[in-house]
């Protein structure tokens, strides 16, 4: 019977979530203020990862690998920041960040759909370009007049534990939760989503039915880019309020792992992003508190856990069949 639970991946994931929940409750009774702070921070840390994973999975569901998420985020973070410095209008700044992501997405789509470049290579070009351009045009001492502030959702905020964590967040964090649901709905419950998934599995068949494979891929990669742009805007305009060289710090790559951990589904990816976010938040917390475990061990925990889980339980995660192969019309 025990073996059955080991074998069923669902059982393990449920067991794991239950365990995490127990630990959270226990620590809440132990010290409620710190628990709330850590959980709130976990949610915010998970935001760019969840958005990055959404970007990745939209591309991959339509058959385009995007390893350039890191570069997309970095460039959008930079452009969004600059616009915020110049205009002082945060909403406009976020929108330009999103637009930047979309434009880079267009570049990626052009490379991998039209030019039919090796898609890993196309993503690498975007990553290096991101580091180069933001580094070259970086100026020391630029400061914005502020960042996006938390909006509390009235009475909901007073619910113990959940209130301060879920209902007192800045706008992009809320928007991420909405986007996860929207992308899930679009991908699995609309004609558009069915077509997207079909293009990622068997483009030839979809083409015979008169659906434009190139257009589907272009649209998905560009929309994904816009979401990555939102992740970039989150970093400069909501989380930190300033720009540093290479400030994405590998989040784009972790987002890829989050996407695969979540088996190319929005909801699964969101769960994986939360797990990573929790570990990052714990690591930061431990660095400040007097503790006996070196923070590096907590820091590497989610990564090790991913390896173990992938090896044992989600090993056969199946990507879309046509991912990575450019389509040629006959």
């Amino acid at each position: 019977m025990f073996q059955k639970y080991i074998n069923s991946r669902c059982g393990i994931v449920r067991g794991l979530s239950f365990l995490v929940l127990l630990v959270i409750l226990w620590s809440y009774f132990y010290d409620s203020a710190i628990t709330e702070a850590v959980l709130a921070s976990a949610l915010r840390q998970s935001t760019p990862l969840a958005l990055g994973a959404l970007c990745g999975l939209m591309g991959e569901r339509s058959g385009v690998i995007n390893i350039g998420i890191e570069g997309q985020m970095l460039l959008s973070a930079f452009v969004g920041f600059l616009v915020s410095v110049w205009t002082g209008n945060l909403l406009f700044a976020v929108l330009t960040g999103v637009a930047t992501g979309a434009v880079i997405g267009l570049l990626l789509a052009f490379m991998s759909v039209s030019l039919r470049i090796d898609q890993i290579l196309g993503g690498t070009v975007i990553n290096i370009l991101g580091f180069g351009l933001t580094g070259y045009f970086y100026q020391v001492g630029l400061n914005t007049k502020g960042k996006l502030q938390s909006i509390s959702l009235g009475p909901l905020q007073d619910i113990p534990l959940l209130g301060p964590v879920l209902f007192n967040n800045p706008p992009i964090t809320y928007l991420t939760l909405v986007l996860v649901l929207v992308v899930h709905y679009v991908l699995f419950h609309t004609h558009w989503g069915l077509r997207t998934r079909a293009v990622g599995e068997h483009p030839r068949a979809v083409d015979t039915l008169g659906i434009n494979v190139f257009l589907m891929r272009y649209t998905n990669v560009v929309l994904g880019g816009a979401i990555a742009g939102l992740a970039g805007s989150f970093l400069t305009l909501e989380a930190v309020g300033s720009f540093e060289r290479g400030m994405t710090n590998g989040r784009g790559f972790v987002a890829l792992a989050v996407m695969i951990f979540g088996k190319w589904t929005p909801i699964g990816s969101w769960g994986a992003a939360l797990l990573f976010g929790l570990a990052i938040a714990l690591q930061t917390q431990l660095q400040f508190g007097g503790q006996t475990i070196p923070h590096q061990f907590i820091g590497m925990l989610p990564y090790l856990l991913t390896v173990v889980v992938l090896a044992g339980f989600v090993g056969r995660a199946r990507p879309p069949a046509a991912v990575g192969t450019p389509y040629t019309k006959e």
Partner: protein
Amino acid sequence: MINPFHFLKKVWLTIDIPCAAVFLSAAIGAVLLNFSGANPLDAYGALFQGSFGGMSALGRTLEKATPLIFSGLAVAFAFKAGLFNIGTQGQLLFGALAAAVAGFGLAGMPGWLHAPLALLIGAFAGGIYSAVQGALKAYTGSHEVITGIMLNYVAINLTDYLTNGPLKDDTPGNIIARTPLVMETSWLHRIGSFPVGFGLALIASLVVWWFLERTTFGFEISTVGHNSHAASYAGMNVKLIIVWTMLLSGILAGFGGAVETLGVVHRYQPGFNIGLGFEGITIALLGKTHPVGVVLAALLVGAMKAGSSQMQFHAGVDKAIIDVILALILFFVAADVLIRKILRRRETKGEKVLFSTGWSK
């Protein structure tokens, strides 16, 4: 009998597109420099002066190119089996740390033994770490890109912990997380201004070429890369080949880290090796996964890195322009369709090279 004219023509046909890509990227870079108010001629002049102007500049170029050759070879080697070894960074870190430990830990050894031994220990540390990734791929099916990214972060955290804890330099007054200096018997010296490590890198690329082109095992590796089903139908043990490929790729990466520790930094200090592994991906792609291409690509990137300080100092141009130019070069090499139109040249047979095989295999 090799006709020299035909040989030269063949060489030209392999390098014409990369050369055109470099010139085109430099031209676009010049436009960008001009647009941001710098003088492109001054900048490129200083860049060239800092990388090839004089023996010490040349030595610096070779020194910068050395770890890139190793990490580039590591990535290119794995590409041959259709594997994308993004974990090169972590393997290189372990190689660098293990070589440092061997360098300061093994006391009283003669120089002819100490340095090679430290190098080998570093190489194997990288190899073992990579073999774990290979075994996970082969026997559990977890994708090497994901395990690679994960193990990179594990390596960064673990080496950070070790250099700030058990292996920390205990000289009085030291507050930096770093290991003690390695003993001079384990140093890789320079002959004149020629770093010994660069010689090792050249030998390594020759060995890789020979291994891939002239041995049965090399043939098996590329067969697995082209079609793993066919390979397994032909009786090859695909799983074992995957593990071995990752092991050897990791050994190359570990070597790179070890050479950097023993030849340049002389200790392990977090942050000194960051990026060397990731740059291996660029080098392998730029060199089209061929060992000679890898060396040339590493020399190009090494020269740009070596000259960039001079450029920043004399022409007042930020170093980051190097990355922009590099990305453009990579783009034009990959998008050879564009350049073929300019050079009016068709694709010759067998010119396409295999990189990764997507996520699915």
